[in-house]
């Protein structure tokens, strides 16, 4: 297991050093500094073996976090732990910076003592940790016996990510469906590859220990229910997307540890008791029937050896009532470009020599519209025999719907002990689709 944990600043000075195992000596601290932080070359691997000692590191801003071991540890676990450690620190004192770490070093030692025992990660959910690691110190004495056992049962219990006794006057939850859509398209408009990777982020401000059930238009569930099944309970969200797709096929999804996985596996239902505040409920990936918000139609003509004519049309492919934002099209130009004249119908376009591209920006664009840009590119004559490789045209945008077609059908909240029902909870659903790597070859 993890033998020790060190935190360094960018100069390689130790800010935190906690050793858990006898086989890790003080010299390990220096070994990492000399061989990794001060190494001349770029880091070639996040795992380094120095004299039979393995170092795992991650970097946040200019802070290095390193876990050390001499055993055959679970490497994936060590990295997951280091990320978790960062999350915990951020939750306690904000940004991970040298100043914040020095300001909170006693707290960090206390946390490290709690979440890592003999190198074995223990409960590291901030919700639970904040109940008893508070830096108030004196708290211990003022707790009643009930309070103490409540803490310990929560830390060790099945719902380690949430503490008991949370109360809100207004029970409210926010669901954000955030997707990034990736595309590679041939010049003829054929889709070479396309996928959506999405996340459902939830902010919950709910009292007590609410039992939640999340439903979306997952093809497997819808097919199982058959026609005329349950009515759409989402109600609150009238969302975009040009096609009225009933269900979507999800390639794969992963869930926050609060979700009961065996239930998902057997019934495909997503039920959980959520952590308090913001967290990522699930991630998913789809590859089928993706709504491609924009289509790019390129036309490149070479006029002799010193001139290039480029025409690019973009078409928006979603409901006319919706607006896409932050649209940016980047049209690559050859290295030997000497001058560019651009005419565009909408937005602003500029040749950026440093990026070897014409960058065309449009602030807003409604669905089912099209716009066009044409450019004349003058080239310097070269004796380079090599042809210009014509990199793809790439695009950025943001649209207010989920390109995968995912819809939230319901999120039901049950809290039997407190007197509020599902109807009293105010729910907000938002869909944001962003471009990932969205490219069209020309």
């Amino acid at each position: 297991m993890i033998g020790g944990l060190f935190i360094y600043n960018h100069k390689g000075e130790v800010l935190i050093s906690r050793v858990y195992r006898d086989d890790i000596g003080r010299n390990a601290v220096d070994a990492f500094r000399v061989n990794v932080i001060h190494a001349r070359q770029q880091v070639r691997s996040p795992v380094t073996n120095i004299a039979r000692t393995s170092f795992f590191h991650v970097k946040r801003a200019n802070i290095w976090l390193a876990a050390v071991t001499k055993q055959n540890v679970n490497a994936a676990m060590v990295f997951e732990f280091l990320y978790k450690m960062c999350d915990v620190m951020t939750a306690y004192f904000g940004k991970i910076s040298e100043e914040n770490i020095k300001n909170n070093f006693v707290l960090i030692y206390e946390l490290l003592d709690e979440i890592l025992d003999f190198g074995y990660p223990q409960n590291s959910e901030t919700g639970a940790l904040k109940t008893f690691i508070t830096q108030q110190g004196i708290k211990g004495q003022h707790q009643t016996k009930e309070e103490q056992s409540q803490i310990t049962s929560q830390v060790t219990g099945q719902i380690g990510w949430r503490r008991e006794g949370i109360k809100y006057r207004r029970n409210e939850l926010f669901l954000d469906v955030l997707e990034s859509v990736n595309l590679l398209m041939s010049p003829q408009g054929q889709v070479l590859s396309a996928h959506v990777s999405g996340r459902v982020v939830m902010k919950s401000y709910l009292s007590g220990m609410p039992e939640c059930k999340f439903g979306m238009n997952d093809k497997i569930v819808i097919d199982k229910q058959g026609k005329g099944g349950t009515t759409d309970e989402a109600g609150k969200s009238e969302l975009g997307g040009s096609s009225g797709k009933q269900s979507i096929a999800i390639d794969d999804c992963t869930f926050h540890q609060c979700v009961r996985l065996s239930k998902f596996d057997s019934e495909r239902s997503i039920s959980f008791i959520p952590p308090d505040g913001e967290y990522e409920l699930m991630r998913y990936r789809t590859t089928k029937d993706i709504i491609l918000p924009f289509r790019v139609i390129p036309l490149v003509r070479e006029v002799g050896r010193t001139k290039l004519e480029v025409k690019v049309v973009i078409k928006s492919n979603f409901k006319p009532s919706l607006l896409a934002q932050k649209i940016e099209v980047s049209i690559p130009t050859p290295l030997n470009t000497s001058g560019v004249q651009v005419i565009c119908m909408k937005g602003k376009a500029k040749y950026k020599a440093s990026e070897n591209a014409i960058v065309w920006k449009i602030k807003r664009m409604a669905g089912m519209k099209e716009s066009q840009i044409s450019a004349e590119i003058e080239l310097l004559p070269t004796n380079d025999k090599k042809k210009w490789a014509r990199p793809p045209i790439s695009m950025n945008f943001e649209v207010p719907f989920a390109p995968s077609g995912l819809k939230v059908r319901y999120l039901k909240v049950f809290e039997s002990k407190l007197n509020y029902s599902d109807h009293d909870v105010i729910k907000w659903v938002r869909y944001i689709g962003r471009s990932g790597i969205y490219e069209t070859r020309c």
Partner: protein
Amino acid sequence: MPQANENRHIGSKMTDSKYFTTTKKGEIFELKAELNSDKKEKKKEAVKKVIASMTVGKDVSALFPDVVNCMQTDNLELKKLVYLYLMNYAKSQPDMAIMAVNTFVKDCEDPNPLIRALAVRTMGCIRVDKITEYLCEPLRKCLKDEDPYVRKTAAVCVAKLHDINAQLVEDQGFLDTLKDLISDSNPMVVANAVAALSEIAESHPNSNLLDLNPQSINKLLTALNECTEWGQIFILDCLANYTPRDDRESQSICERVTPRLSHANSAVVLSAVKVLMKFMEMLPKDLDYYGTLLKKLAPPLVTLLSAEPELQYVALRNINLIVQKRPEILKHEMKVFFVKYNDPIYVKLEKLDIMIRLASQANIAQVLAELKEYATEVDVDFVRKAVRAIGRCAIKVEQSAERCVSTLLDLIQTKVNYVVQEAIVVIKDIFRKYPNKYESVIATLCENLDSLDEPEARAAMIWIVGEYAERIDNADELLESFLEGFHDESTQVQLQLLTAIVKLFLKKPTETQELVQQVLSLATQDSDNPDLRDRGYIYWRLLSTDPVAAKEVVLAEKPLISEETDLIEPTLLEELICHIGTLASVYHKPPSAFVEGSRGVQHRRLPARAGSGESSESPDVGQPVGAVPDTPPAVIPSQGDLLGDLLNLDLAPPTSSAPTVTPSMQMGAMDLLGGGLDSLMGDESETPHVPSRMETQSPQSPSECSHPELGGDIAGSPAMGAGLASAPVVMPASLGAPVSSGLDDLFDLGGGVGMPTGAFVVPKTIWLPAMKAKGLEISGTFARRAGVIQMELSLTNKAMSVMTDFAIQFNRNSFGLAPAGPLQVLTPLSPNQTTEISLPLSNVGPVMKMEPLNNLQVAVKNNIDVFYFSCQYPISILFVEEGKMERQVFLATWKDIPNDNETQYQIKDCHLNSDAATTRLQSSNIFTIAKRTVEGQDMLYQSIKLTNGIWVLVELRVQTGSPNYMLSVKCRAPEVAQLVYQCYEMVLKN
């Protein structure tokens, strides 16, 4: 309550960092005063300063008593700080550490479970014997504490204590208590108990500590659904060590583990993958569930690639293993391994590796387009690897070879130095894989000769020039240019240059005599490198004595290189699959390679598949477990290769190489007795085996120039055995040899090794069935061993009574065979018993011509009766060892025997090449006098001498690529011709 946290946040904001800045002199003294202050706040401040100093590496151990004095406090924060100090310095001040014991023991009784746990947790970290003694009682109580938080802490503490004093833990019975905790009601207690037990079990490899059985497994699987993400990892990692009893249990565990594949924590996913990959091994492949499981594995593996880069790296290293073990899981997922612009370099390099593994005819166009992109990137290592990958694609997917070559040529045109060098190295491999196909590009390669400065690229280029010397007009000039700085080159280049010039000489002898002499003298006389000197001497000797043999050796056809390079060796792969997710899977090394001490030295194996008869997997699965049994025959060095290996070694002390020789000879002898010589001999001629052997020798250096080259030129050539073996017979060592004693050693060796000892032996057949001989069954065969004809008999008593008094006699026969001694059956043969007898025969008995010629009539007597039977012996047992005719005599004799005596036969479906045939025939005392090659047809001239002095001359014609041999037999006694033909058939086809 969130408000409370806000306060703390602000409260500590401006305070703590100041502790890092105190660096003045007399600091320790000041701290001491502050620690002993009456004010609580001041004390706490002082302790914080001490901890800060400790963190940055200052020695504050002098403050030990003062800090320990602060321990008795109600302030939890202060207490924790003091504990932290204690853990760091207790070992250096053991006597003073005792002072803390009382507080610990008291704290373990505290009503607050958090304090009880803190005390037991800290105590376990203080590695001082005297303290450990006091630890036992509190620990025992804590293990049974009512509060789960204390129990889960105590569980880990047992592991800590075990690390300090294993005996104590056993004596105190903590292990049993720990085992009980596996049934605890609290999932976290279970998880920590599992973790602690697993760790302790690792240092007791043979103890049945974890005692995994279906009941305990069930408990673990239940806890799996309830505990924290970390606990799930501990449990899954522990489960992976279990071996289910049968496929049904295996399936039910798999079913309960698969939900974990949807966990957001990548480590949980990877550990679940490990369990599934291992247990899958036991499922019958025709099971529906098996297919379902395979399909379920792909999506989570792909999802891992959207994790943070460090985890992606771990995932990719593991996927690399999984793809080798079960290529079908990810074969449709090529695209997700395409490199993204923003990937860190370590992710890029790993993705590239997997792309090559997944490359197939279906996706090769896409892969190549990608690789071409990568070759124009900035990072040198990445670009090199991409170029190399293009070459590997060419070798792996034949259809793409042409496109790959043209891509590589485009890259060479870029003139980027390292790209050019890398491209040349891979093109050399492509030449090896597809001979006579892409040599048109040689001209382009030669243009870049001057820019090559890396040894590997230089060696590759020299190899190309030497190999294709006849097509390169100025090959001699090119090689000569390298020769100028011969001694400054690396060994790799020197060896290559030597071989290339010898090749050139053999191809264009007239113009390059001077060059070859120059390089030979550079290599032998001016070099200190034994490898180089030895190779030089061998060439020199070969060239000066027998240029024909030299040609056969140096210009021999090279075995094709393997398609799948750098695969992990199957047993290691299996072990690594059992370590998915761990460091071992990241390093691709077994834990014993990087873990000290007893931990992790245990080798893990995949479980054997349950179910009937399915020992190996279907061929499309790549490197199945079943492939392992195939390797041993390839490992036994056949003679040609053994010599090749010896040539690789330093030849100087013949004594040291002797042991290498003997095992193989013994092996041969043993095989002979078992009648299984064919496997040994057959191996030599089947070229596909050769590359596989080379691969096992150097799995990590697939395209390294020196290895395949040596293998190709010397070791890999079957001609070598024959060539060297015949050398001492043809010429005395003194003849024209440039030097020296080392060479004599070599030829001694050659003589020893090259002389085959045994001929092919027909398996025993039944000569006398039991029903014809009152229960005595005789089966047998003939063999010639070390010049002695042997009749090998098996006598089986199938009657009800004991048999005794055996004797044997032969009737007169064509070659005067007679028993050289009595038939020795030592003990009476009881019912159902079999005895094996080897009866030496002489050829001085009475002669009478039999029909057929090799017919032998035998009489066997025992206490019951006398029995008669007849059998036929292969004429090869009559071929004497002195059957090699002088060349001149051969020519004369051939002419002398009238053409009427010549008989022609055709041997069909024989797939040996002429060299392999030579070797094999020689082991049956059929000697090749000369070899002539005319228009792709090898003519072998061979001589045989029978025991009665009759000479048989043979011409064997082998057409390359045709399985049919033409055999012309000339003999003064034409009756034997038919038998000789039968003998050839038998030897060549078995």
